[in-house]
């Protein structure tokens, strides 16, 4: 008995030494706005973090459910004090706190997701989810018979609005008669309310349901009504196999691995990066067999075109009242996209 105790202690000692060695690894910290158990936004980033764990000489850690504002500043400050080399923060509201902390710790590298401010040691990044949204919109537009598509959405922020617009453009490209009806739930994960939102869309005649929330509840509503649905975040086909057509999905791993590689090699420079389909950060989940081959081919062709540099938001684009916002042939700049707060023609709903 005693011997085994000594052995355990010795092993523990070795274990501690190992951790000590590991402490000389590169330390990467992540700050998430929601629990990673939300199966959505934070979960997708955390999958990317796990890719980093597989790299040699890299240890990662995270703090989840951190409120924007003072709490996030404290968390980032503590990471920097503890000697983290790179800190990723994945919510818009972390931008100003991160900038404050970045100024105090010039040796630490800061990466902010979904914002626009920068410093010498702070870059920002985002994914062109709207490209995948456009493709999923094409599928929805081809499959609707009532020409009404329902879209259960979380909060009227630019990321969501941009997604709805891209989705609508995709749908209109397959079927110019389509209208997209939007219901805001003001929740990221309240499955019951989100399902109810989807049902309310079904009641006004929608026969394809798309969503921008983290729970697959709207998918369920579509399946129960016997109509189609488009998922989000990850392949949601398990939740509603008879309804789920496809889903625009996140894949942050390659971007995080690339960034950390650059830091290791000393080639990292503060920049604004906005990767998309081409870099594999966003993608379209495999399309269901219910989608006709001809539609699938068109979608895949468009995917290749976008990968090759074709733009999604190209004029003429009109707003809901029919006023021209983007002239024919002109493409919207990244800055305009980042701050998009208006719906294009064909979307029914308000952005407030």
């Amino acid at each position: 008995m005693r011997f085994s105790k000594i052995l355990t202690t010795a092993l523990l000692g070795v274990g501690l030494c190992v951790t000590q060695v590991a402490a000389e690894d590169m330390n990467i910290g992540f700050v998430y706005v929601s629990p990673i158990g939300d199966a959505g936004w934070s979960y997708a980033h955390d999958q990317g973090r796990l890719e980093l764990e597989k790299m040699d000489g890299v240890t990662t850690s995270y703090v989840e459910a951190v409120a924007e504002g003072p709490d996030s500043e404290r968390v980032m400050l503590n990471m920097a004090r503890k000697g983290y080399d790179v800190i990723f923060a994945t919510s818009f509201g972390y931008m100003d706190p991160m900038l404050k902390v970045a100024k105090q710790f010039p040796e630490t590298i800061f990466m902010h997701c979904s914002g626009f401010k920068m410093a010498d040691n702070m870059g920002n990044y985002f994914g062109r989810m709207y490209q995948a949204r456009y493709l999923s919109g094409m599928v929805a537009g081809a499959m609707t018979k009532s020409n009404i598509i329902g879209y259960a959405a979380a909060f009227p922020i630019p990321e969501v609005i941009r997604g709805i617009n891209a989705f609508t453009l995709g749908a209109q490209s397959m079927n110019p008669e389509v209208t997209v009806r939007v219901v805001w739930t003001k929740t990221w994960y309240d499955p019951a309310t989100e399902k109810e939102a989807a049902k309310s869309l079904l009641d006004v005649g929608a026969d394809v349901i798309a969503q921008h929330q983290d729970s697959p509840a709207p998918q369920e509503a579509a399946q129960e009504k016997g109509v189609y649905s488009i998922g989000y975040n990850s392949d949601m086909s398990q939740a509603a196999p008879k309804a789920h057509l496809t889903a625009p999905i996140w894949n942050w791993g390659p971007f995080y691995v690339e960034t950390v590689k650059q830091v290791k090699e000393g080639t990292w420079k503060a920049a604004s990066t906005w990767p998309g389909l081409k870099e594999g950060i966003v993608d379209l989940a495999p399309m269901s067999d219910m989608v006709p081959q001809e539609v699938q081919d068109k979608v895949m062709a468009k995917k290749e075109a976008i990968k090759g540099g074709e733009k999604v938001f190209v004029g003429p684009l009109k707003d809901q009242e029919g006023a021209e916002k983007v002239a024919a042939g002109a493409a919207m700049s990244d800055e305009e996209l980042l701050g998009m707060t208006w719906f294009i023609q064909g979307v029914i709903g308000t952005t407030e």
Partner: protein
Amino acid sequence: MPLLRVVKRQEPLGWGSCLVLIAAICLSLLLGGIILFIGGTSPIEGLVVLFKGAFGNRYALEDAIIKATPIFLCSLGVALAFKLQVWNIGAEGQFALGAVGATWVALSLPEAPSYIVLPLMVVMAAAAGGLWGFIPAFLRQKLKTNEIIVTLMMNYIAILILDYLVYGIWKDPASYGFPMTAEFSEAAIVGKIGATNYSWGLVHCLVLGLIFWVFLKYSRLGYEIKASGDNVRAAKYAGIPYDRLVMLVMVLSGALAAWAGFLEASSTINRLQPSIMAGYGYTAIVVAWLARLNPFYIGVASFLLAALRVGVEGLQLDLQVPAAFGGIIEGLILLTVLAGGLFTSYRIVVARKAHEH
């Protein structure tokens, strides 16, 4: 036939109650340790990290004190109403409207100097929060409407008003469409004390806490509140204008929570955004009760609760314990401390024989 009997203590337990408190916290930490163990984390290491993160260094203490500020003010507010036996659980909404009121002044007077804009912000915040306290008080006294439900519902409404403003007319054009107001002007920000990280808000807290104590202990109004809280009928009989007292107290209660909202917007975030709502108004209720409505203990309890929350972040960062563990340990501590209260006011004696009445 009971074997154990509880008997009321004739005199307070004194230092013994500290022992009870420590025993209760140890018990909850033990339970928390077991949960950590089940989750695959070393419980000893976990508790050490938790403690270090909460009290281990200057930064930790600083962080906890800063985080305790809004909880303290909200808690003072609800404690005032509770003294009168008015169940104001609307601190959350009063806090929100306080932030809205202060922001309105800050946004309307971007050029005004500090000595004009800051007092106006306080006044506007207190007025907005006070109104949010007055409505349920008025309904309670005039129409006998239950204040718990009205204050609870008004919390949701207040937060939605805040949402409406920051998603709509107050949205900063430079924020790329994100729901937040423009940053306040330098003059509208409650700054930091010298080179420290503490904001002048901390001084506001100390002063307000002191006024609260003096007011309740020495003023006539304070006496009336205490008397009415103890026995409404007797107080009315003694000629205390009870209806007006309830409304006044609810206005003051709302104003205190609103003050916290003002500080949070002005001093910590420097603008208004939806994430200003962090549930301080609900935490405040727990704190006020634990502290038995005493302003000094409210200070201690808000600090400890804030320290615990700060410590849990360290636990997450260093050992990858899920954020939900914070709720578990907080709930356990509150429940055990509460249960331990029995031993401070009662003695447990072994009954030799059953007592018949």
